[in-house]
Every structure is written in C-alpha cells, then in structure tokens.
C-alpha cells in the first residue's frame, strides 16, 4: 500500500453515533480514536484484555498481538482496536456497538 493509498479517515461507530476519525500512518485505530477525543473503550492497550474488541465492518487490518481474540471472534469479523493497523486502501469501518 503506497502513502497515496493510505486511508486518511476511518468510520467509527460507538454508542449509536458514527464518527469520521483522522488516521495517521503507523497509528492503531484505537490511538486514532483517542487522538480524536473519542471515548473509545480500552484497558491494557496490549491486545491481552479484549476490552477494545470491535467489529470490522469493512477494510483490512493487521494485528501484532491477538491474545484476547478467539477463533470465534475472528470468524465473526472482530478485531482488537489497540492492535489494528490498516493494510489496505479499502474504506475502514470499526463498530464498537456490535
């Protein structure tokens, strides 16, 4: 993915509200949400507690640590926001309400 292709925003759903969140290359989706002053849920920030579990409705991410992500979570399209870094130019949509 080139810098030009890198998505500059992603959509985040939390408490029934949709946000357009600015995204900087190298940031996780959680870091981007917190930088945008969104009260996103998280605890350890290390992929271990599962607090930032969310449904990735569209887009693709890579995750370095996925300890709290079960096989069932993966099959249901869940990701850990604290570990998620975009790896495609596809529009990203992260939903904490599902």
């Amino acid at each position, binding site marked *: 993915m080139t810098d030009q292709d890198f998505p500059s925003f992603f959509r985040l759903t939390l408490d029934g509200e949709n946000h357009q969140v600015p995204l900087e290359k190298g940031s996780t989706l959680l870091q981007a949400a917190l930088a945008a002053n969104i009260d996103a849920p998280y*605890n350890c920030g290390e992929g*271990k*507690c*599962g607090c930032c579990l969310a449904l990735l409705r569209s887009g693709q991410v890579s995750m370095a640590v996925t300890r*709290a992500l079960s096989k069932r*979570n993966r099959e249901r399209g869940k990701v850990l926001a604290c570990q998620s870094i975009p790896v495609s130019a596809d529009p990203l949509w992260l939903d904490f309400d599902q």
Partner: protein
Amino acid sequence: MKLGSIESIWRYPVKGMRGEELPHGYASFAGLMGDRVYGLVAGDGDPGFPWHTAREQEEFVLYKARFTAPDNLLLPDDLDAYEEDGIGVKPLEPADEVHAVQVETPTGKSYDIQDPEFLAHLERASERRLKLIFSQKGQQDCRPLSLFSLSAAAQLSADTGLSVDKRRFRANFYVEWENQEDPYFEFSLVGKNLQIGDRLQIAIVERDPRCKMITLDPDTAEETPKLLQYVSRKLGGDAGVFAAVLREGRVKKGDPITLL
C-alpha cells in the same frame, strides 16, 4: 465496625472453568482451599500468561469441574488442633489424591481430569497444544482471594441495561455491604484490613482489572462486550478487589465482615 457480610463463597477447581458455590470453606495464605488447583497451559501461550482460558475458547466457561470428594476440601484435617496451638502453625494441605476432579463438557460427557482422553478432547476443541498443571496452592491470576459486591452487580445492571449475573466476575467471595450509598464500596477498602467471621483476616490490596472474561455469559458463553466497555470507560477498567490473607481461617456463608 461491621461493613457487610459474606453472601456466598465460590471456588473454581479448574482455572477458567465454571465455579462451585460452597456452604463454607477455608482460606489459607494461598487462597480458598481447592481454588484453581488445576489449570491448562497452552504450548503457544504468551510466556507472561500461558494459561488457556475462555479468552481463547469462550465455551471453556461452560465446562463444569467438581471435586469427587468435595467435603474433604472444605477444611484441613485437625484444624481445631492447629488453631488451639496458638502460635499460628499452618495446617497441612490435603493430600494430592484428595484433589481428584471430574469435568463435565458442555455436551454432557464426563472425564477424570487426569484422563489423557480429556486433554485430547480439549486440544481438539481448542485447536491448541495443552498441558494440565496441578498445584495445591491456587493458580489465581494475581492474588489469592477476590471479592465482588452484589451492589456492584446491581449498579452495573442498572447502568448498562444488561442483566449482570454476579458469576461473570468469578470472585471467591460475593459480599453485601451495609453501605447503601456507594455501589462500588469495595474500591474504598483498598489498603484496609478486614476480618471475616471469627478468625480469617485479609488485606484488600488492589482493584481487580478486568478482561474479556466478564463479557461471557456463564450459562451460554455468549459475549456481551458492552459490559467490559462500560467497566473500562466508567470504572477505570476495574470491578471488585483482590485480597491477601493475613490470618488463615474458616469462612462461611453469612459471616460478618468487619474493619480491623
């Protein structure tokens, strides 16, 4: 000063599996006798937390583990003699063979926990290499005892709109506080020492940081992330408290909890 009382006592023979309620028990420096004496370590587990739990396999909370001789693990033998001795000698733990456990799978099949077929079943179900670990000293995550109040469960239910079953929090002691103002009263006890019943004394050492385990319905293993999200955003990620044992002793349902 009485702060509250013990509503129920729970132990978890196998770390991560369903717990069992006890009429009474014995809290040693290592925790409630029989609590988390078995656990399963994953070959691909994090070196810092190698345990296989319901974080990796949600249905793990549906496995029912029970001691085949449960009464023998409620109190140490000759406890009266130890307590009368007066110098606080630690009672002998029951022998290893007294800790025999049967596990019932979610589909109703029962295994002896030491049966290699049981490990093979779990490895197939979890798609992981697992190793059974036994230790008479409990294999709790952080501290020997955990407490959680019914008022906290009720407040979480009210605030989230969920019906929050206390068992999600996998505490050893569920408590009812006299304090009706603060539903999370146990947080205010961090750093304080308490007596439970006639002899047991504990120190409340820290708040209990929570993970995915509380999102799992103890009867269905279905996940409700909203509960952990709420705990994270409104309670700093914590629910309930951890305790260390200062003086070993018996504990029974209804015991008063007093401030030392």
